[in-house]
């Protein structure tokens, strides 16, 4: 499955001091996303910057450097803002990036912070017109008396320049903090979701949006759940799903009504009363929801598990995977150190046969849905020498170390968490964000999906 995974060189996000564990908070990666072909990989960080990596085309001369990702462009997407009316600082942290499908030579992506979504155009310039009649080399207007003949400007090649420009700014539509954006399969609209509302936008129109979900109660004291994530169906442009802090998923059909407060389907697993604790509600909150590529299944992540749901079965998930069940007895400490509020994301592989999600101690987990095998891998400098094969790791209960490489629950480093992961749309290449570092792993043995 993923056992023989090579590591490409660690791509350090913004520079670091190798001998110290010093991490600038602004460099912490907050989102990772491949584009639709997998050629580009975008990351956003807490400082509001976006870094785009591009995969080098495979070259014949250096067979081992095929498909490495190198920095393509870096730009500042969002700046910190201040809402004077509410006396609130608006963080510049990039919460989500979503690529638009490519329709011409340029690439487009949506990036969002807590309040504002922006559409960015990423284009290349590798030619420059030269030989203007009215302007000289520096762009100054020529003295007309010096012009004695006419010439046709020609395009001369120049060093590749990647230009990024903001094309749209979708602002002032969210009272609460935006947690998700999702591009519709119609390639014309997208949605943005905050804690209580979901808005539908047209990509070309920035001064208005349609509210399609509103779960704000008339009396805020009656609030019992919030929206935690939302996504459009990959093929049906009228369907979308949103998850809640209560652990439920709602599938909504925009054809049914303008306001999709009534769900078409409600996916909920009844709580096991024997497992109830103080923290049952927190750990059942869904932190991420993703449609499978086929559109047939949903993948959700809550604090301790990842679940696969069949769109045709609302009563319970199809499969439940324990990500780190050894934490179940430690919920109280995890509550005290705030880790219980961590929002882990999840990902499908291209063929929907494997799911992946992050955990603590820079571990991430992959579950093969067909073979039911799972693996725990670590994203760390030591285990990531280039071309090194990642070793599976194992977490055991305290005092129960069987093998040399086992790590006991009590030695886990909870400051090293992998919240954001992404899987290449077609190949076995994964991007793992570990705090301020980005790791890209490739499965060299089998590049195609199986």
């Amino acid at each position, binding site marked *: 499955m993923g056992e023989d995974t090579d590591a490409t060189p660690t791509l350090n996000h913004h520079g670091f001091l190798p001998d110290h564990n010093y991490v600038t908070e602004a460099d912490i990666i907050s989102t990772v996303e491949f584009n639709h072909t997998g050629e580009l990989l975008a990351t956003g960080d807490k400082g509001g910057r976006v870094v785009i990596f591009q995969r080098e085309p495979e070259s014949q001369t250096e067979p081992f450097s095929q498909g490495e990702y190198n920095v393509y462009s870096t730009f500042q997407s969002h700046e910190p803002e201040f809402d004077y*009316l*509410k*006396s*609130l*600082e*608006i*963080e510049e*942290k990039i919460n989500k990036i979503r690529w638009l499908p490519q329709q011409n030579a340029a690439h487009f992506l949506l990036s969002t912070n*807590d309040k504002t979504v922006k559409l960015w155009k990423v284009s290349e310039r590798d030619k420059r017109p030269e030989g203007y009649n009215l302007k000289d080399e520096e762009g100054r207007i020529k003295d007309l008396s010096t012009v004695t003949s006419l010439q046709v400007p020609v395009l001369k090649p120049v060093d590749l320049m990647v230009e990024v420009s903001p094309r749209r700014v979708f602002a002032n539509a969210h*009272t*609460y*903090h935006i*947690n998700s954006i999702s591009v519709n399969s119609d390639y014309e609209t997208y949605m943005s979701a905050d*804690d*209580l509302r979901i808005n539908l936008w047209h990509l070309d129109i920035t001064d208005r949006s349609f509210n399609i979900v509103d779960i704000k109660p*008339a*009396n*805020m*004291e009656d*609030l*019992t*759940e*919030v929206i*935690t994530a939302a996504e459009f169906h990959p093929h049906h442009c009228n369907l979308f799903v949103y998850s809640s*802090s209560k652990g439920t998923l709602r599938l909504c059909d925009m054809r049914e009504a303008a306001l999709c407060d009534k769900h078409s389907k409600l996916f909920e697993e009844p709580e096991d009363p024997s497992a109830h604790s*103080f*923290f049952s*509600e*927190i750990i059942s*909150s869904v932190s991420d929801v993703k449609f499978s590529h086929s559109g047939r299944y949903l993948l959700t992540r809550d604090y301790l598990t990842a679940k696969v749901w069949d769109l045709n079965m609302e009563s319970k998930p199809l499969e439940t995977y324990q990500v780190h069940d050894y934490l179940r007895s430690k919920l*109280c400490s995890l*509550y*005290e150190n*705030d880790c219980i*509020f961590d929002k882990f994301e999840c990902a499908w592989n291209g063929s929907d046969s494997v799911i992946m999600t992050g955990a603590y101690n820079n571990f991430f987990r992959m579950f093969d849905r067909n073979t039911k095998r799972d693996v725990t891998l670590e994203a760390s400098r030591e285990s990531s020498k280039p071309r090194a094969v990642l070793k599976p790791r194992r977490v055991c209960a305290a005092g129960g170390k069987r093998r040399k490489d086992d790590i006991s629950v009590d030695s886990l480093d909870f400051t090293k968490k992998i919240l954001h992961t992404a899987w290449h749309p077609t190949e076995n290449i994964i991007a793992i964000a570990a705090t301020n570092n980005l790791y890209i792993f490739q499965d060299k043995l089998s590049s195609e999906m199986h």
Partner: protein
Amino acid sequence: MDVNVEAKRILAVSISKLYASRTQRGGLRLHRSLLLSLVMRSARDIYHSSRESEAPIAAAPEEPMDTSSRAEEQTQLPEPESEPQPVANGAEAASEVSDSREEESDGETTEDKENVSPTRQSRKRRGKASAAPDFLPSKRARLEPGEERYAAPLGSCRTMAGESLTTLSLNRVIPAF
């Protein structure tokens, strides 16, 4: 009782988290506040239900707490335990700040619990349940020797039973937007 001890600890931790979240960059997070309030609610329920059941047994240890609070209550208008006050104050301050932020100014029909007249419900449950929840640090103002306490004006007194204090704080956490 273990559950009770744990409930107390969780409540104390939750309250400090609530405080800390008010100063976080980016403003109060609704989701986090909701989860905090849910935990506090279950911890409070466990705490009070176990306190109810062990009330007669715990009579003796409660006395030192009660006498200190009662002594002060003699000299001024009945004032509920001040320990939970910072909580309610904090939540209330948050909600005051946020009331101005709230886009729908008429959105809340909350009871004006702070200005309840002293006669209403203030004498209820003067027993153990209204004694200071002992998981909270004592923030009671202490008189320096030589000082005198002045009778506080009516309006500034918080006159609620201990239990409804935590109710207030929990319910007010959410509208803090």
